[in-house]
């Protein structure tokens, strides 16, 4: 009870921000407000997408004949993926969630039954309209000669990554390294553990979130290499400090599929199902895909991908289902208390 109270208190500012719109959004009203609860790096992406969707909905909305075009306003909420999922579980009235990992979305089902089983099959491509991957950002000219995962475990290389216990992005980083080692000739559990142990030995700071790590590497100038989402890496290398850093793509990495879902329990209560479903589906449209690509997320559509080919070089990837049996099992083995990540830091007995 009390925890819910605390979390509600935390999310209160968000609620207040959206409360104005949440109240009068009945199904017959021509003005609808949606709340999209998302994670940190998608802030700019959805700012642009929301405006595009509002224009699209005004033109295409069903049943609008003879009436004024329906107006839709989409409010965004951003934060760490896990924290956002908990806010929704604890009562934040999200119509749509667009989070960093399927594990967090699935918790809406496991913990609060807000979405049904099989939610990930409701939309194409595992409900992930865009993908990203895990890459390296190094100092300009790559002075430490970092090319691939084993270089991160070398002595004298300082690696920046967030804490996998608190950051969804950091879990992708960790699993990318683990999977790389598994896929090498002669790779097995032991070689994977050796590589990951070596990498984390080189990590001087474990920030709580992905943006924190980007700041540590970009602003504080700490570390020789930052392991990051490709979208964050490209943002840093193309927009924020193009003269100081560059991106290195490892020979093999993980395919990150950030999923989107309509929150059934909430849209049914608020009567916003039609527009919420249109909202997530429109992400797959040419315009939606274009906006994703513009903000450095890899589009699913082949045409849009071809258009932005210079931005997204070919990369060898594996998925979490292929190597780890899905998020729930990966979370349990690696990141829960007493899991492999904790063991890396336990003093040797």
């Amino acid at each position, binding site marked *: *009870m*009390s*925890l819910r*109270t*605390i979390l509600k208190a935390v999310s209160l500012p968000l609620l207040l921000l959206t409360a104005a719109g949440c109240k009068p959004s009945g199904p017959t009203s021509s003005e609808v407000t949606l709340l999209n609860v998302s994670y940190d790096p998608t802030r700019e992406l959805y700012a642009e997408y929301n405006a595009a969707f509002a224009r699209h909905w005004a033109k295409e909305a069903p049943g609008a004949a003879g009436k004024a075009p329906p107006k839709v306003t989409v409010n965004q909420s951003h934060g*760490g993926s*896990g*924290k956002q999922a*908990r806010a929704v579980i604890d009562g934040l009235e999200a119509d749509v969630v667009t989070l960093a990992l399927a594990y967090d979305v699935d*918790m809406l089902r496991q*913990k609060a039954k807000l979405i049904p089983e099989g939610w990930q099959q409701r939309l194409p491509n595992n409900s992930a309209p865009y993908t990203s991957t895990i890459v390296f950002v190094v100092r300009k000219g790559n002075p430490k000669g970092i090319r691939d995962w084993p270089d991160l475990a070398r002595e004298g290389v300082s690696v920046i990554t967030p*804490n996998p*216990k*608190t950051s969804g992005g950091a879990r992708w980083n960790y699993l990318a390294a683990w999977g790389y080692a598994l896929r090498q000739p002669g790779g097995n559990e032991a070689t994977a553990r050796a590589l990951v142990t070596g990498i984390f030995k080189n990590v*001087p*700071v*474990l*920030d*709580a979130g992905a943006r*924190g790590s980007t*700041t540590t590497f970009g*602003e*504080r*100038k*700490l570390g020789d290499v930052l392991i990051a989402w490709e979208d964050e890496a490209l943002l840093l290398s193309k927009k924020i400090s193009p003269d100081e850093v560059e991106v290195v793509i490892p020979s093999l990495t993980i395919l990150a599929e950030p999923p989107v879902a309509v929150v059934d329990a909430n849209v049914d209560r608020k009567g916003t199902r039609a527009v919420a479903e249109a909202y997530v589906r429109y992400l797959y449209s040419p315009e939606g895909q274009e906006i994703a690509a513009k903000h450095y997320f890899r589009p699913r559509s082949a045409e849009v991908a071809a258009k932005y080919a210079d931005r997204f070089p070919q990369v060898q990837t594996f998925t979490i289902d292929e190597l780890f049996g899905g998020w729930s099992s990966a*979370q349990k083995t690696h*990141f*829960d*208390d007493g899991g492999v990540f*904790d063991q890396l*830091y*336990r*003093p040797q007995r």
Partner: protein
Amino acid sequence: MKRVLPGFGLTFGITWVYLSLVVLLPLAGLFLQTFTLSWEALWAAVTDPQAVASYRLSFGAALAAGLINAVFGLLVAWVLVRYRFPGREVVDALVDLPFALPTAVAGLTLTALYAETGPLGSYLNQLGLKVAFTPLGVVVALTFVGLPFVVRTVQPILEDLDPSLEEAAATLGASRWQIFRRVLFPNLLPAVITGFTLAFARAVGEYGSVVFISGNLPFRTEITPFLIVTKLEQYDYAGATALAVVMLLFSFCLLVGINLLQQWSGRRGRQPGH
């Protein structure tokens, strides 16, 4: 018994309802959530070596920060009350700034300053002193957020302290040190202890500024509130509240102890006058 002051029943009732709503109810909820764990699971969660290491850092750093603030906060209050100098009002206002600044901003700023590449950090680094991403950095952040408490509790007491007391002591032949030790200090001690308690309690629960400067390395620079967040991240609400309860019980015992100490010092402080 007829009371001289009217309204006891009403105000007492309101006080209880208010305290129950604002403090007791949430705390009861916290304990209830913990009791969803079995005793073994609860014990395992709170005695986990990683958790124990975090208690040591959380309480140790909070204590250190509280003590630093007690000494320097007293000094700041003294300067603000007893001397008139240009810009005094500005300094006075500066003291409250740590209250107003969002703690995350404080954390980011301190980290930028004290990181190896920061303006202060690079200098300290040459002297072989690392602040950011070490336990020392945690103390620095907690000292920052706790500063106003001591100054603001000592200031009004010092203002009300009649300078003629010191003059009287001086005419009776007391040395400056004796005046401080026998006249000033006993009068100020209860306020200093209150300020210390507030600063300490604030520091124990601090999260926002510390996560930036500590680096969050397991067993080395993880504070207990951070561990609580890692448990929430696994949707382990019961485990998170178990740690919270430990912090709460620790803090409660410490605060009761400090209160007793304060009563004792208050009584001692008043004696010479009566």
